[in-house]
């Protein structure tokens, strides 16, 4: 009996312990990741979250940016040795909603991360976590706004009307079916984000790599310029580009003659090693950081690597024989090696080329376009000549360009952009912006309908969101 009593005692104890332990026994917080409860508590976490947005941008544009900006245009041609569904369908203008490249998921992942940073840093600031650290706050949120603007700008150029998401999904039960907003709404959002960014950002960071590979005021002005040009607001574009040009301390043209070997010139190294004096914003990839690569080798490079593309004949004929840029951009076998060391390139460890989003030449030539539209032809041609002379060509003389119409000069500037910025993901947008896409592409791939400029919305996305309507051409 005594024994039984002991057991009974033990039992009751067990039950009591059991119940009291209840609460603790069922609470586990993650130990190897953050939960909402312990994130957004320190400013370093917000900075890390901003870096997270940059890593998502790395995935979104390396090398997808090439497909978006080049695959439907005339600077590249199919590399017949390597036929892949994506490249073949884009080049032949058989753009359809089954193509994985028509999925905007990676760009929206950046938007969502930026939304999280913007929203939570605000709360952190309100809670005093950023007291005495206002400049850090401005830097983090300013960049988040700039990233969001960049993504929306890229997306609206591709898909037109967009679901405008400016708040992160707080809880899984929030409404996630968001309809598309008209492009005018999207533009308002982009401008407002750019305004927020430019109010917060500074011109330089230290060390200099941060100035080039993170958003600065210069980067924001570059998006402004691009946006205004896209919207044909030339006066505004002239103003915003001016802000970049005057910042000579940070932005200057590279040279094609500052080394005896072309491959070692600062111009060549702009693409191979990156972070050049000309760069305004580029996405940094570094193999030593967990093997991060931009995978340019999948689309460009030595034909032995079976890249998707090679240089088109149309582009090759645009270069004059003296143009040094041609030698940088491609080789005799039509392989595009602009982004790769011409010798000793080891694909396995050197395929981490930075993706240049904006550089000074791009902004200068956009400005030239605007100046031409504003009938400031000599100023426009001066910029073109700046490019030509650097490349070893002769400058255009007034006797020649005075005879040209506005449209002819625009074509001349576009050709210069082709030569200068080829393969950098610009050409398709140049053609659409200036309304010359059909004129240029119809003979090549039969593009005939302006509705076809926009890309289709990815099939799966339409299936998942009943509020989305497919772009008219693809209905």
């Amino acid at each position, binding site marked *: 009996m005594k024994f039984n009593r002991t057991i009974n005692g033990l039992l009751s104890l067990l039950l009591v312990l059991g119940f009291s332990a209840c609460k603790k026994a069922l609470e586990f*917080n993650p130990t190897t990741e953050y939960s909402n409860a312990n994130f957004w508590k320190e400013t370093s976490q917000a900075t890390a979250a901003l*870096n997270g947005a940059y*890593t998502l941008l790395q995935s979104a544009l390396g090398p997808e940016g090439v497909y978006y900006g080049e695959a439907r245009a005339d600077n590249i041609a199919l590399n017949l040795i390597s036929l892949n569904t994506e490249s073949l369908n884009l080049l032949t203008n058989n753009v359809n909603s089954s193509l994985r490249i028509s999925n905007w998921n990676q760009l929206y992942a950046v938007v969502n*991360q930026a939304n999280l940073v913007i929203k939570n840093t605000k709360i952190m600031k309100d809670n005093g976590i950023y007291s005495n650290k206002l400049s850090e706050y401005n830097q983090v949120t300013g960049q988040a706004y700039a990233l969001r603007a960049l993504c929306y700008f890229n997306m609206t150029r591709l898909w037109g009307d967009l679901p405008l998401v400016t708040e992160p999904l707080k809880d899984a039960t929030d409404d996630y079916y968001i309809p598309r907003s008209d492009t005018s709404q999207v533009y308002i959002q982009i401008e407002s984000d750019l305004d927020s960014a430019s109010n917060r950002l500074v011109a330089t960071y230290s060390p200099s790599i941060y100035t080039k590979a993170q958003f600065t005021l210069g980067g924001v002005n570059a998006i402004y310029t691009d946006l205004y040009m896209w919207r044909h607001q030339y006066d505004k574009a002239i103003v915003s580009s001016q802000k970049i040009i005057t910042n000579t301390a940070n932005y200057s043209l590279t040279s094609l003659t500052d080394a005896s070997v072309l491959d070692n010139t600062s111009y060549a190294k702009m693409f191979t090693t990156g972070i050049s004096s000309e760069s305004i914003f580029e996405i940094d990839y570094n193999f030593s950081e967990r093997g991060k690569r931009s995978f340019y080798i999948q689309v460009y490079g030595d034909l032995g690597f079976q890249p998707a593309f090679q240089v088109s004949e149309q582009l090759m004929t645009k270069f004059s024989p003296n143009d040094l840029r041609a030698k940088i951009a491609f080789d005799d076998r039509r392989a595009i090696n602009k982004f790769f060391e011409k010798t000793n390139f080891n694909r396995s460890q050197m395929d981490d080329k930075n993706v240049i989003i904006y550089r000074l030449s791009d902004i200068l030539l956009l400005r030239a376009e605007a100046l031409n539209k504003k009938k400031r032809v000599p100023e426009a041609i001066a910029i073109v000549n700046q490019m030509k002379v650097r490349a070893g060509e002769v400058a255009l003389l007034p006797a020649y360009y005075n005879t040209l119409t506005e449209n002819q000069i625009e074509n001349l500037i576009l050709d210069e952009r082709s030569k200068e910025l080829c393969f950098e993901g610009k050409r398709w947008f140049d053609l659409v912006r200036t309304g010359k896409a059909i004129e240029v592409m119809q003979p090549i791939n039969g593009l005939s309908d302006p509705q076809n400029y926009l890309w289709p919305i990815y099939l799966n996305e339409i299936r998942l969101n009943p509020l989305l309507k497919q772009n008219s051409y693809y209905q």
Partner: protein
Amino acid sequence: MMIKKRLIVLLSLILVTTFSFNLKAQNVSSGIVNGKVVDELTGELLPGVSVSLLSTGKGVMTDKDGKFRIQIEGKNPVLVFNYLGFKKTSVNITGQTDIEVKLSQDLIKLSEVTVVVGYGTQKKREVTGAIGSVSGDQMETHPLGDINTSLQGKIAGLQITSNSGEPGAGATVRIRGASSVNGSSQPLYIVDGVPINTEIYSGGRVNDASTFSPLADINPSDIESVEVLKDGTASIYGSRASNGVIIITTKTGKNLKKPVLAFSANTSMTELGRTVGILNAPQWRSAYIDAIYNSTGQMTTKVSVIDSLHPYYSKSIDWHDIMYRQALQYKADVNISGGSKDNTINYYLSAGYKNLDPIIRETKYKQGTATAKVYYTFNKSISGSSAFNLSTTDYTRILSGLSGQSVVYQALSTMPVYNPYDPLTGNIIPLFEGSKPNPLAIAQLAANGIKRSRVFGNQDFKIWLTKNLRFTTSFGIDYEVGEMTNFTPLSLLPQGQLSRTSLQNTNSGSYINENLLTYKLTLNKSHNFNFLLGQSYQKYNNNAIELEGTGLADAQITTIGASSVLSYYNQSIAEHSLLSFFTRANYDYKGKYLISLVMRQDGSSRFGPDNKYGYFPSVSGGWRFTEEEWIKKLNLFTEGKLRGSFGVTGNQSIGNYSAQGGFNSNGTYLGQSAIILNGVPNGSLKWENTQQGNIGLDVSFLKDRVLFTADAYHKKTTDLLFDVTVPESTGVSTVPGNFGSLQNNGLEFTLNTVNIVAPFKWVSTFTLALNKNKILELPGNQDYRPNIYNMARVGQPVGVFYGLKALGIYSRDEDNIFIKNETTGEVLPYKQGSANGKVYKGGDVIWEDLNGDGIINDDDLQIIGNPNPDFIGGFQNEVTYKNFSLNALFTYSFGADVFNELKRNLDSSPIDQNFSTDQLRRWRKQGDITDIPILVKTDPMLNNAVSSRFVEDASFIRLQNIALNYKLPVGLVSRLKLTGATIGLSASNLFTWGAYTGYDPEVSSSANSLAAGVDRGSFPRSKSYNFSLNIKL
């Protein structure tokens, strides 16, 4: 050492006993009775029957002719005859000296069979729930299989679909249809009272279709019985029981007065079961030339295609022959069991070793298992038991699936003109043109391995506080370590890619403590009560370290340390726990009216504070109508019972921290730490709930020669718990939540019959299960598509295939007529994708234009198939004649469809590869009438879109297993100093009758029922021919 010493003692004991029996038998004196023992039914002489004198207990055994001599003494001497499988018979032999005794076979009264019902056992006749049960004997007919394959076809309503033919392969296990739609909706498995880890795992950080089941850690030879709780009474296991509960009981030494040593050895020749039709070299050349010409309008310049005399490309290689082999597999098991005379201690110890070389070259699978199980009684009120299982596995494997490094896929897709060896040097060629890896080189040079070790078991103590009140406390553990390694050498990768290696180390365990009080009470000899009160706490933790490195110097050292850059590294620790209280009350009135009530409360750490606890009640009742006098008078039934139950069960399989959401590292940017969103929180996440009603009938006739069980159920699952795919504009791809509801209705029948008794004995079991499932509700009642093949739609079965419907192939360009203006003759043709789309031409597929707009696009998608079978089951037969027995198990499944993604991949030709033999029928020129479209590289007209063209009927009947065993005659056996020996021949997976053109109609690429039935090229099933030897000492 201890075990060894004990073994020797035991062995000597057996020998001594045997000898002493022999001695006694020869000890002749006066008062002797001679006799023989025969089988009442067959008249067969029975050797080895124990014959003993009741008064003294002294005895002898019958010889090989069934004869015995025994000395008798005393008045009214009674002889007791005891023989396994026969009724114990006593004969008064007063005055007789020469007798013939007939023993009648002891058909075990089925109602007396005990079944495990969760936290206790019940006599089968007392059971009020729907429980299926399989004995270990029934599983032994499949010696080299694992538990999953051994259970197939044996329990009505239990659907087991192996994911592949690999050893240790994962399987999708469904009880009564798909009641959950999340990834891991497996039943709960309980081994000897401990819930064990059964979460299917994959083989590391690689693109691979293979999955593996932790159930392979259990040696089927150690299994005594398997019970499946199918209905609402499973609520005693509450939150994890909505997909049913499978209770596995391992063998014991119970009631064994003397030790038994059993040894079994199996050897098996294994080969590929079925092949998939692919083209040979001339056929392929013609197809490839067409594909290029139709795409570019030009003749291909590929040397391998146009130069059939080229030394490298002159042969036609059958890659099935190269990559598959006949493999020799073997398995050996030894176990010792026994107990003390007074039954205070009994034990079962076993060790097993398996060497299952899979049928793909360069693979190896080895497994060792060991078990120790001991029961001991300290005194009248305290007893205890310990049961522990060990398993260690080492698997050198290849990758499957549709990736470039998948040997299974590359064996099919590698062009038949390629020679695995350089014809000039004889060396293996790792990469063919276009950087296509040689599958043989992949198998030889890549290194993929799984090593795991596991221990699980429990320790319990039972204390009788009073005669009828028992307290049980137990501690259980399930701990495993696993190491997954994957290495791809530079030589198998396209120029300039990096060799890579990865290591995944997991370390996971669960610990459970349970405390039970059981109380028995009988009032007035007719009211029987049984109470259970219990508490349980189980904590799980999982610690995984994943490393991936690239740029190894060579292929010599392939471990992670040899990489030049760590491209990925992560450690993740996950914990969760369950705290439960439960109670059950059983009542019966004279064993005639039965009622059982269950209530369980489960708390899970996975849910938010407001939803932590779930309540899972059930009520069930039974009426043994054969106990009613008026039914007894009919003299129709041996035993009969009507059952009914209703119960609520739950499901909590969702991420450990899903309710909380989270952020994790995404590497670095500019050398600084980068963190991204990892999961959107769901504060209102709660239990998935399944309500199930069941009515059943168990009835047996003709002295248990016919036993029939029927069940009908209705099961409704609400608040389906899963990670739902959301629009990408949210920036995430899935969010966790409770979405929608579905139901399963079904019927199950099991018929056990003794068809012929003598001289042949033929026993059979037939199972049949029909299930219909239907989605009742979805968020916003909108269609939900988790992938491009399957969909969920209200009113439809789970995971139906969705795509375009093919009506044929345009024979000529001019056959494409959407609208024809009869007066002008002007034709408006069908267009692809949009009004601006391309016009279908001769050779393109004629798609059904569902909305009649002349445009074939998303609006024309329709339901094109259903991966859920209409009915499934098995037919098991055992025929015995004298010492021979023949077992044959057929399994079948009817009405399900498979989506043949493997074929779609081959024929849609995204990269240069071989095609399926369908291409022999391809459209080639205007006027051709066929069912296979024109072959165009990159398929611009999307003729190979997801469509009815790739939906195939997956119905099949399989001769899963056939075994012929011969029991060596007792005379021979006893001369060999054995107590029993059996040799056997068997064949597994010998025939599969079905129309499916892939490797096997049993396809399960995903455990997720929303994504079921898509054949993505898993490791094909093999067939095997086995020889087995079983010896008992």
